[in-house]
Every structure is written in C-alpha cells, then in structure tokens.
C-alpha cells in the first residue's frame, strides 16, 4: 500500500480518477495452491479464462498463453472447469 494521504489531499468524494489500479494490490501473495498450465494438453477452449475470478489466465488472439501469478489467488476453479485436465494444482512454494 502507498503512504496514506491526509484528508486535505484526498479528492472530493474519494474519487479514483485514473481507472483500475491492479498494481496496488498484487493478490498473488494469497496463493497456497499454484495452477500449472500444460500447453501441450490445452485445446484453447477458454473455459479457464471465462471462469477465472482474478483475470489471471493470460490470452492472446483467443489463445491461452499462460497464468498471471502476480494476481492468481490459487482458487483452483480453472483446474476444475478444464475439460482436458490441462491445469494441475500443486502446493505453492513461493517462487516467482
């Protein structure tokens, strides 16, 4: 968290003018289970992307390219909805 502002420095109404600020809240540190994506098994059906609560399935031109560990909370929903078991949950060891 950045240093807290005093009330005089806050915008009226508590407005956050610049839009979303994901970089201020990197929720990847919440994770106790880590999803591992298997590129060879993946059929790019995007079910994991659709169901990810933390927008952490990275896609490019409609294809899965990886997992964003900066924000993934490790809920495991992606592994459950994957029709071809291309995502495996392993215990988090804190790397990367």
């Amino acid at each position, binding site marked *: 968290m950045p240093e807290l502002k005093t009330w005089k420095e806050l915008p009226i109404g508590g407005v*956050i003018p610049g839009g*979303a600020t994901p970089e201020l809240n990197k929720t990847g540190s919440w994770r106790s289970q880590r999803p591992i994506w298997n590129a060879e098994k993946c059929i790019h059906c995007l079910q994991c992307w659709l*169901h990810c*609560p*933390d927008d952490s399935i990275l*896609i490019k031109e409609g294809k899965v390219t990886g997992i964003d560990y900066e*924000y993934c*909370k490790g809920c495991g929903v992606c592994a*459950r909805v994957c029709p071809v078991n291309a995502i495996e949950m392993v215990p988090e060891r804190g790397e990367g």
Partner: protein
Amino acid sequence: MPSIKVLAQREEAQVRFTAGHSLCAGCAEPMIVRTVLNAIEEPVVVANATGCLEVATSRYPTSAWNVPWIHSAFENAAATIAGVEAAYKALKRIGKIKKRIRFVAFGGDGGTYDIGLQALSGALERGHDFLYVVLNNEAYMNTGVQRSSATPRCASATTSPAGKAIPGKPQERKDLTEIVVAHHVPYVAQASVSHLIDLANKVERAMRYEGPKVINVLSTCPLGWRVKRDSTIATAKLAVDTCYWPLYEVVEGKYKVNYKPKEKLPIEEWLKPQGRFRHLFKSEEGKKLIAELQAAVDRHWEELLRKERCTQEA
C-alpha cells in the same frame, strides 16, 4: 449471440474489470461481472450497491474498474443509475453527448431483495433504460453470512444458526424474479454463474430492449455456503440441475425456460455438498425437512412450466 471467442476478443481490446481486487479466492462475482461487461459492446457506466463487490473492488485508493463506476449507498444502486441515466438523456437532448452509453447496476441479494427493493421498484416503474444485475449469493456475505430474504429455507446463517431452537432459516426465500416480472418491464431473467454463456446471451438480448432490464444471477459464495473454493461452478450447476434455480427469461411477459435438465436431480444433490445444510443430514427431522424442500422445488418448477405454456400459447 456473444460466443466465448467474442467475449475474449472484447476483453483483449479493453479490460473493463481487472485483477487486483480483494474478493475471496473462488468468488463467483468477478466471473459474472466480467461476463456482463464483456457482453455489452457500447461504453458502460456502472453503479454498485454496497456489498462484497463494492467494498472489495474499491478499497481506497485502489480500484478494479476501467469503466466509470459509482457507489453511493446500500439501498440506492437502482436510484443512482436512474439518476445517471436521466442526466445522460438530458445531455444527449441538448447535444452535449453524442455516443450511445449503456447503464448497468450491480447489487447483491442484501442490496436488492432487502435494502434496495424500494429503489429498484421505483426505477423499474419509472422506466429508466438500464440493466440491473443481482449477484445473488443468498446472504449478507460481506458482513459475515447474516440471513437475507434470499437465503433459502433451512440454510444455516449466523443470524439463523441451525441448532436446537431452529433448523436453519425457518422462512421461505423471497421470489425477487417474480416481483420484478410483476412490474411488467421488457426483460427479466434468471441466470447462474455455472452457465456464463447463457448469461452473456441474456445480457445481449436484454440490451435490445429500451427500458428496465433485470437479471438475477445465482452467485456461489464458497465461504458462506461452506463449499470448497474450487467448487464454485460445480455447486451452482447442481442448483440448476435440481431445478432449485431454473434458468429462464420473461421477455415482454412471455416465459421461456432456457434449460430443462434431462434428468431432474433430487434436491439432496444440491444440499449435500454445502456446509450450511449439513444439519439436515443428521436427524430424522432433517429428512422430513428435505422432503418439504423437495416439494417446494417441485411446486415452483411445475408452476414455471405452466407459466411458460400459458404465455407462449397466448
């Protein structure tokens, strides 16, 4: 109809709802919000009632919203979006805004079934052009699982705890979807987080109509329902397959049931995985109550099918 590819394309072009929010791991709400926002092509303005979604996505000075977003109070998301929409119409009339903008309100069951019901009813009656999406997780989850009028009968909540005195919540849940139907608005639907493409289709269909639109979406809460956090989708799917939470829409007064399970599962299938119903499986009285819950589901399902038949024939 927006396919999953179309939704992905839109999110690749603009991420309207981002990561970096503080909703629980496995929460259904962000899946629903992303799907709703990706299903709308035009620019969107969002109003949010107090609740999990609001507090967890707008902790000052953080935000998960890349669309204009406003929160004012618990009870008035519908009144807030109605005011925004009225201001937009006024500005459009005098030529200060040219482009088409769509208006969406998100509220939980607490902010809609209970606290915001009057504001919602008012906005529906006045006919504002907006979509109201209920994120129905069946209790006040943000403050610690207090029962709401959406909490199903027999569910244990912190203000209706199952024990010697009562077997969970004694009362039936309120049928908000039917209350909205009684306002004769152009589009009303029930959806579930387990069927997100169905939800995207419903949002797209709803947006074809001018006036108030409401979609009531069942939103699994792993914490409050006491299910594993990776079971969000599987649990909600059981609600649909047991006909506890039918997927249907009412378009200009005509009912259409969007999904009729080939084999209607017994209500136990929906109750059993959830910790909030665990007490029902431990006593003789519980068995009796399950039979009563089954009878209620059967009655409501038959009634829904009858309404579909009657209104489609008419």
